[in-house]
């Protein structure tokens, strides 16, 4: 029963593969809830990935690496924030610019680090629990970042729906003119949200380069930033659904790797298309319900705001 024995490792790998998507999607979810559409997730992930990796190599400390990755992601995001919030640049165009810039910048920073292996993070081991069949490794044998990403889901949910700050952030995203009239600092709130999104994308990228792969390669996120953007729509802007979506995509990614191991003869390139095709499919399934999207999408998503105008 070889196939059955595979299920445990597949489940475990699924949660790991979902982690970078979950970090990035949660960050972008908060950004979009504040009414800003940042298409630069891919670029911020790459910058986070390369900075985290480089710092970990230099200092030997993964904690420092992740912290720097989050800072680097936030710093890249701040470029986007300044342009769209204060210089009133088009959000779609600026997000694209951020991705193009991030791809180039990360390649430049990372050129001395290509091909250097890193150890990755230690995995949790609880005698008994981790050894459980099928689910043991998946639930009790991951590393800290996987758990952190999952822990971030209820935290983001509580922040958005159970705190005053979260309420204000959502108000800004729904109607920035009204929020402004009530005296809330629309631009400041959006700026902070964009920084948070950048930090989360940076962590997601760093998880890839420091833990999942773990090494640096140019363009190593290979579209995960864009998949995370699609996940936010798929989740209809709800954190828990974003987590389910990330697991789904983690599953598709891992399945694709294991299908060949099962002796099914499909060219690897065609299998590698699966996550991208799945993204298109879920987008179509969720977007076709126009009323549902309209009900859940922040009403001011992507709209510019100028306090003096």
């Amino acid at each position: 029963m070889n196939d059955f024995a595979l299920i445990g490792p597949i489940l475990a790998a699924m949660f790991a593969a979902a982690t970078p998507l979950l970090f990035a999607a949660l960050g972008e979810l908060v950004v979009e809830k504040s009414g800003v559409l940042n298409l630069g997730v891919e670029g911020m992930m790459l910058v986070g990935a390369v900075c985290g990796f480089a710092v970990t190599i230099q200092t030997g400390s993964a904690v420092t690496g992740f912290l720097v990755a989050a800072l680097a992601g936030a710093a890249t995001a701040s470029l986007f924030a300044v342009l769209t919030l204060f210089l009133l640049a088009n959000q779609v165009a600026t997000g694209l610019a951020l991705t193009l810039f991030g791809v180039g910048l990360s390649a430049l920073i990372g050129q001395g680090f290509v091909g250097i292996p890193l150890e990755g993070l230690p995995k949790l081991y609880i005698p008994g629990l981790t050894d459980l069949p099928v689910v043991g490794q998946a639930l009790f044998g991951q590393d800290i970042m996987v758990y952190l990403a999952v822990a971030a889901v209820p935290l983001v949910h509580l922040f958005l729906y159970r705190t005053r700050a979260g309420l204000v952030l959502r108000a800004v995203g729904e109607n920035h003119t009204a929020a402004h009239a009530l005296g809330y600092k629309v631009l400041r709130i959006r700026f902070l949200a964009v920084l948070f999104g950048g930090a989360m994308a940076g962590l997601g990228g760093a998880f890839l380069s420091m833990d999942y792969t773990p090494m640096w390669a140019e363009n190593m996120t290979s579209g995960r930033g864009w998949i995370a953007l699609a996940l936010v729509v798929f989740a209809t802007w709800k954190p828990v659904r974003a987590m389910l979506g990330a697991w789904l995509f983690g599953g598709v990614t891992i399945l694709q790797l294991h299908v060949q191991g099962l002796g099914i003869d499909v060219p690897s390139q065609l299998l590698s298309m699966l996550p991208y095709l799945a993204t298109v499919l879920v987008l179509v399934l969720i977007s076709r319900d126009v009323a549902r999207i309209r009900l859940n999408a922040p009403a001011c998503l992507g709209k510019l705001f100028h306090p003096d105008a």
Partner: protein
Amino acid sequence: MSFIRLEPRGQASKTMVYVTPLLAVALTLLSGFILFLALGFDPVKALHAFFIAPLTSVRGLGELVVKATPLVLCAVGLAIGFRANVWNIGAEGQLTLGAITGGGLALAFYGEGGWWLLPLMVIGGAVGGAVWAAVPAFLRLRFNASEILTSLMLNYVALLLLNYLVHGPYRDPDGFAFPESRLFEADAVLPILWSGTRVHLGALFALLAVAGGWLLIARTFIGFQIKVIGLTPAAAGYAGFDQKRIVWLALLLSGALAGIAGMGEVAGPIGQVTAGISPGYGYTAIIVAFLGRLHPVGILLAALLMALSFIGGEAAQIAMGLPKAITGVFQGMLLFFLLASDVLIRYRVRFGTRRAVA
């Protein structure tokens, strides 16, 4: 009350429309100077190697045209879409599909070609690109799915498809398992226009696209509709313009042009189908479209500049050992600076605290 304020202009500044791209280029060069200094290179020498040296030889000028050709073809189409709020960012995939279909025809008729093969390949490339772009168009109109995400996802799918083909069906039977096709025969290769360089017939297609794009936008009713939809979608709705038709048109047209660009690469400078047919032309074309102010003539100039950043990057790598990745940094920076300085078109920068508004 902030010290620096933006004051809306009554009317968009016509001057600034032309000034801001130049300002963005100047700021990029300045940042490049600082970047080179930080990386420990002589900035004057590096900028010279990057932006001047490639232009001092006939070969360099030829390469400039070769690299600008796909950029123009992609960007003219993208710009028409961007004007109508159709965000096709899948030019890279559409270009790849054009290479797959156009190049596939060259391989299918290997050894049996004739004068008709090249025209057939052009049509094949255009159809391939247009079909690839039709998917996001259909998904947006039928299922309300964002064309930004779907067109981008299809870029990855197209690249994987190309990769599969050159490892499988397209692979040269006598090629020792290298992932590349046979070299095309002479009747499947675009003729050289400028001897001593690699400038091929595709450059003429690019010029035709510029002229055609200008005619469409400036002189036709469809062009008028595109502009209205882009500026005020509500007005277009009241006027009864068929917005669906414009989405179809924008995506099919840009897909077809990108497809021709891809076909032009495999039938031009490359001469075969390989796994690496584009250094990211489809993405750079987005920058070209914006830098060229979404205007075909502006795009032509912007494409030449971006082409220079590609060959400059290669030249500087060979001459001074500069990292090639700098090209991407330059391109990204340029778009950032452009978007930032575009604020000057609609706003004045005012210093000092607020005056009383009469």
